[in-house]
């Protein structure tokens, strides 16, 4: 009876009301990023780490200047890591930077498709969980891998819908459905979500949250787009919670049809 979600999303030791996680890449200014984050109502945003260029002023100042860290959990990712060892080092650097001991674990050596490496991801997850990190691994939509990561103590699994930034939506619906059916931790669909209908579809499949970046960041109006994704994500989550109908092979009338005006 209320339009805001009335069950919280529990990841690790934290609770979230919002089911939309925002990536901060690709915005054309810190201001537009801040406005979009605010408008989205998100409670978790990702950041990356990058080698500092010596003797060169970075144009984009410090990202934390633009993130209202009291509003959001800042989730560092391990983008750029080519293997488990590098991912672990990045996670530790993020912790040393004073960020929460959480990590979006992503290891994708191929530069064309940015698809995650299942072997290295599991290896890194095992190490990081042991070190006390709350680990959110980005994975291909592989149900067996998802189970192994849960067994290893990951706080979520984050299967992809389609390649990062491709806007192609949920091409992996059949396998995401299985992941959700078998999951003992929240399932966050990440990557490829390019339109509100994609976010809605993920939630209707039973996902617990979605992570969106490109579709909002490069929109002509990131703030408006953030709002649109937030509204859709939560409405579809609500619809899934209420219970959607089954599909049928034939039609089913919505008006009385019989013996009308047959003379």
């Amino acid at each position, binding site marked *: 009876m209320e339009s805001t979600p009335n069950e919280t999303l529990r990841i690790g030791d934290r609770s979230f009301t919002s089911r939309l996680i925002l990536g*901060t890449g690709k915005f054309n200014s810190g201001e537009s990023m801040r406005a979009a984050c605010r408008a989205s109502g998100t409670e978790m945003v990702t950041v990356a780490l*990058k080698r*500092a260029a*010596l*003797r060169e002023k970075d144009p984009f100042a410090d*990202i934390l200047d633009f993130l209202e860290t009291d509003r959001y959990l800042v989730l560092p990712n391990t*983008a750029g890591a080519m293997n488990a060892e590098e991912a672990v080092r990045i996670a*530790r*650097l*993020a912790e040393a930077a004073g960020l929460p001991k959480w990590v979006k674990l992503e290891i994708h050596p191929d530069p064309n498709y940015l698809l995650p490496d299942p072997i290295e991801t599991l290896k890194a997850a095992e190490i990081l969980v042991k070190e006390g990190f709350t680990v959110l691994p980005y994975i291909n939509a592989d149900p067996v891998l998802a189970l192994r990561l849960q067994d290893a103590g990951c706080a979520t699994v984050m299967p992809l819908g389609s390649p990062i930034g491709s806007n192609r939506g949920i091409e992996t619906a059949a396998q995401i459905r299985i992941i959700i059916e078998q999951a003992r931790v929240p399932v966050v669909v990440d990557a490829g979500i390019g339109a509100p209908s994609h976010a809605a579809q993920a939630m209707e499949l039973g996902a617990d949250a979605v992570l969106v970046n490109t579709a909002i960041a490069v929109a002509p109006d990131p703030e408006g787009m953030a709002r649109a994704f937030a509204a859709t994500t939560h409405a579809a989550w609500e619809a899934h919670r209420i219970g959607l109908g089954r599909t049928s092979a034939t039609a089913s009338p919505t008006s009385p049809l019989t013996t009308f005006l047959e003379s």
Partner: protein
Amino acid sequence: MSAAPTIQIEVNGKPVTAPDQISVPEFLRTQELDPAKIIVEWNGRAQTREEAAGIRLSDGDRLEVVRLVAGG
């Protein structure tokens, strides 16, 4: 008068010359980097800013010098 002794260290995979026993924050400033915005891995171990402040660099040290940026 002899010149101050210098060391060779590796920063982000490249060789750099620095004064011996320079502290990490000082070194960063010589590179025009703000220590408050930088995270350092020293010889393979991540360092908090407090820890980094106490480190003095020696010849052959390896540093990774990174910052937080936007990312998805």
